[in-house]
């Protein structure tokens, strides 16, 4: 079965420092991978997605992620974190047959930004 693992429950980063959030997936075929951000009381906002092609994908708000098939990973990165980036981040994989693909999410990583 498809699954996503986010090994870090909490991460604290100083403002201006770089960030990397880890994500590992389990999926038999070429996966469709996503990173979402959720601020308190808000819905899920899509940061970026990987379908195929270039393994380094750019997203909104200065985020990027790199797909590494050999490591089954899709880590999220940002070179310089801003206080407004404090939120919960979810990695997800689209699972299912043609035409209907539900999202399977990891348990999330809460990002705290210190001054």
């Amino acid at each position: 079965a498809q699954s996503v693992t986010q090994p870090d429950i909490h991460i604290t980063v100083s403002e201006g420092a770089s960030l990397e959030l880890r994500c590992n997936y389990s999926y038999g075929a070429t996966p469709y991978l996503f990173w979402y951000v959720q601020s308190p009381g808000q819905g899920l906002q899509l940061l970026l997605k990987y379908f195929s092609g270039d393994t380094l994908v750019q997203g909104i708000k200065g985020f990027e992620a790199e797909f590494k098939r050999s490591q089954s990973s899709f880590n999220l990165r940002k070179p310089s974190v801003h206080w407004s980036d404090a939120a919960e981040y979810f990695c997800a994989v689209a699972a299912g047959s043609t035409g209907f693909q539900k999202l399977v999410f990891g348990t999330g990583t809460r990002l705290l930004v210190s001054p």
Partner: protein
Amino acid sequence: GAGVSQSPRYKVAKRGQDVALRCDPISGHVSLFWYQQALGQGPEFLTYFQNEAQLDKSGLPSDRFFAERPEGSVSTLKIQRTQQEDSAVYLCASSLVPRGPGYNEQFFGPGTRLTVL
């Protein structure tokens, strides 16, 4: 146009009460998903509609959970005889009609936070 909307945003129910949660998808979106997000967890799939047809309900946790989309637009998730373990945020997402291989992006609503006392 408008995004996915959900109502109510917050719902408090006493254990044993029935609740109904509403989702208004983006106009023209054929696919509609419900997810449940427990505290400190990622969202988990509940059920999927394509137009008015409920094609997958494998994620519904018990027969107390029921979802419908009678006219292929607005959907309602109903929970009967609520229990404390039903406390969660219920997220609705919609997407365009599926066309062959590939993926149609899901757009999420803000969710309904259900608290069962």
